[in-house]
């Protein structure tokens, strides 16, 4: 359900941009999704295919760029990517972190003719 609603908003934004630029056809859509946003790319692809049917974006390729969750350690200042949601600093083992990236939900660009 989450991906359905988000992908619906994403497709609306893409079609609005395509219309504004007088596009006949959308070739490619590039989105940026933060790892923390809870979006499953495969699920987004499924809904994208369904929701673009019969529109100028029907044959568009969907490129999903997943931004990993990045954090700064508040104890030692080390900046790192969180792997497997392991909430501790790989340098000093502290758990107090400041999350700096990973919540993105953006349409980055579209390619049109």
């Amino acid at each position, binding site marked *: *359900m*989450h991906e359905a609603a988000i992908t619906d908003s994403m497709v609306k934004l893409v079609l609005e941009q395509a219309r504004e630029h007088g596009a006949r056809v959308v070739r490619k859509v590039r989105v940026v999704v933060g790892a923390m946003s809870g979006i499953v790319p495969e699920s987004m692809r499924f809904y994208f295919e369904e929701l673009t049917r019969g529109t100028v974006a029907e044959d568009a390729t969907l490129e999903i760029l997943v931004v990993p969750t990045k954090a700064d350690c508040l104890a030692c200042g080390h900046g790192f990517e969180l792997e497997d949601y392991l*909430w501790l600093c790989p340098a000093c083992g502290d758990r107090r972190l400041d*999350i700096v990236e990973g919540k993105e939900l953006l*349409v980055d660009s579209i390619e*049109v003719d």
Partner: protein
Amino acid sequence: MQIKVVKNILSMNEAIADRTRRDLRSRGITLLNLLASPGAGKTTFILAVAARLAGTIRIGVIEGDLASRLDADKVAAAGLPVVQINTEGGCHLEAAQISAVLRDLPLDDIDLLIVENVGNLVCTASYDLGEDLRLVLSSVPEGHDKPYKYPRIFHDIDAVVVSKTDLTPYIDYDLDAFTEAIRSINRKVPILPISATTGDGMDPFCDWLVGQLKD
């Protein structure tokens, strides 16, 4: 031709949320978005807060559920103005749904409008409803490890309320471990333990809440 867009996918939702925030602020109403999993005790918590603040703060409620009017009926029985939204399968509330029901509430008689969001720790985190305050209610039976498993929802919030603390003797729950988990995601957020059943912690919570309200 490549068109650079760089727009938030939820920018439409955010535009509506911003409008709601402005409208309610101009009326002196604080909007609170209450997030939790199903069964965390959201409705009981709202009723306990309203009972304590009766005569001080005028509270209105928007109930969000997939189906039924059960929660709205409970809130109405306590004498509070309430509107029920049924999402019919939708797993979260969106800004447009809130803005659409505002006209059904007596806004001139409300200081604090509480939205009880759909019980869900995932998608509700992504949708701004126009709130001034965002709270997560996390109950003792859910376990102290939830912040590690659902980090996003614990990130941009104004307070975490730990509910059902009266059940702690019966459950393997460690508030220190919960606090440590929260601190790994959110170093500043206040953590306020309460029991709506015994009343423990309700006064400190209500003091905190009243301190957050707009004039």
